[in-house]
């Protein structure tokens, strides 16, 4: 995992890279991010009927977001994290089943709609954070022919599946070289794959004027690749290391610019929901200080809900009590050291359970919420 000083040097390098090319990590510190699923936030045509199947497309798109930026900005958010933008295999409403990396997902609108979305955000000084995947493509078989530009078997690792035990035992060889949920695992050590992905990320960031990236499935790819990927992107990258282990999560700081602060997510939820001793929060910082330079917490992204976990309010127990601790958790995310993220629907006390129930449609209450809820 490397020494603390080595990791610090890598972090400094990554920060310098981001400062040279795009929105710097220090600039991102001032931002407050609203995370939404493009398919679930709002429809461009303003229709408000429901969605019969949350496991498939529901009709949200860029035009819908443009039309409702007041709703987001009205809460004070000045950055939006959207779903992956590229063309997906059938059913990839979430965006994580990529097919053609140089084509946009038409379900979310046209390319012009996406340009218009970014421009509309920038006109309001709202920054756009795009979710990106460099670990896998969307097919679960070994037919790679549809995966533009990565359409050959040599571009992928041999077929094997990461098991729960692999994750539990930190078997990095299998985590990096086998398939997550069966998805075709890209072979970043193949020079063509590496250069294709690096060129791609540089191209889309510049082409669409993207301000930052949320990077999916970080531990599933070697660290050296993320360093190159972040450098090529030229913007702040915040990576997903879906783990509460501070040593493991902290080990990725500086490979991507920083990481989603999953330890914060686990510690805050556990402390508040289970009414544990509030000195747990002191311990939280104390434990981080053993793993990283605490100044790095400035660049991590704090959150208490997201699309990969059952919403906090779906947990059992008294509703009024849950609402209170949920508010406190979000307040801690917004005020503690770090870059805060609030998951869409939190403002309306959404309470969906496991995926896809935590990915509700929001448009049914876009105009009534302010006057009803406080």
């Amino acid at each position, binding site marked *: 995992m490397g020494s603390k000083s080595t990791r610090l040097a890598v972090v400094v390098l990554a920060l310098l890279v981001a400062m040279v090319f795009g929105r710097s990590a220090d600039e991102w510190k001032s931002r407050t991010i609203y995370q939404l699923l493009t398919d679930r936030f709002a429809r461009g045509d303003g229709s408000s009927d429901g969605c019969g199947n949350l496991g498939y497309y529901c009709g949200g798109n860029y035009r819908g977001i443009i039309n409702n930026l007041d709703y987001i900005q009205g809460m004070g958010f000045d950055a939006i994290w959207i779903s992956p933008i590229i063309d997906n295999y059938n059913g990839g409403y979430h965006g994580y089943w990529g097919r053609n990396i140089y084509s946009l997902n038409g379900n979310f609108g046209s390319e012009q709609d996406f340009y218009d979305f970014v421009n509309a955000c920038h006109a309001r000084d709202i920054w756009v954070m795009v979710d990106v995947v460099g670990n896998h493509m969307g097919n679960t078989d070994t037919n790679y022919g549809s995966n533009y530009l990565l359409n050959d078997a040599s571009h992928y690792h041999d077929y094997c599946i990461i098991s729960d035990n692999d994750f539990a035992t930190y078997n990095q060889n299998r985590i990096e070289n086998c398939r997550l949920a069966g998805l075709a695992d890209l072979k970043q050590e193949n020079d063509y794959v590496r250069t294709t992905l690096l060129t791609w990320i540089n191209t889309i960031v510049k082409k669409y004027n993207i301000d930052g990236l949320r990077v999916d499935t970080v531990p599933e790819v070697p660290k050296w690749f993320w360093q190159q990927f972040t450098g090529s992107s030229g913007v702040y990258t915040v990576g997903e290391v879906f783990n509460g282990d501070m040593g493991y999560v902290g080990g990725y700081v500086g490979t991507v610019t920083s990481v989603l602060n999953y330890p914060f997510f686990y510690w805050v939820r556990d*402390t508040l929901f289970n009414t544990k001793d509030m000195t747990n929060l002191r311990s939280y910082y104390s434990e981080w200080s053993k793993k990283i330079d605490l100044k790095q917490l400035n660049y991590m992204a704090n959150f208490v809900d997201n699309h990969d976990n059952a919403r906090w309010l779906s947990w059992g127990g008294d509703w009024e009590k849950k609402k209170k601790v949920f508010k406190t958790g979000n307040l801690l995310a917004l005020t503690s050291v770090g870059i805060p993220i609030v998951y869409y629907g939190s*403002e309306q006390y959404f309470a969906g359970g496991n995926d896809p129930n935590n990915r509700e449609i929001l448009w049914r209450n876009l105009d009534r919420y302010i006057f009803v809820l406080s």
Partner: protein
Amino acid sequence: MYIFLRTVIDARKKHQIWNYDQVERYADSEIYAFSRGKFLVCTTNRVNSSVSKSISYHPFSNGEVICNIFYPTSDCITVNGPISVYLLNGESKIYVPR
């Protein structure tokens, strides 16, 4: 919750808290409080009762008037030594200079 988020985010921006280190001000089994500049955050895990603490290590000066951002006109304190923080039924407070 929409209004709650707006209130916190507005205060976060107004006081540019990202420019200040986080300093723990008080911690016990019921309350955790910290500051970022002159921005004092007080939270509790006690949702069905009240808690009251005296915080002597805080970022404000004697004579300074500080107000809770959620009740900026009615929940104010003129600082004179330690601050008495009272949290009712799980509420959080953020004190800033008036």
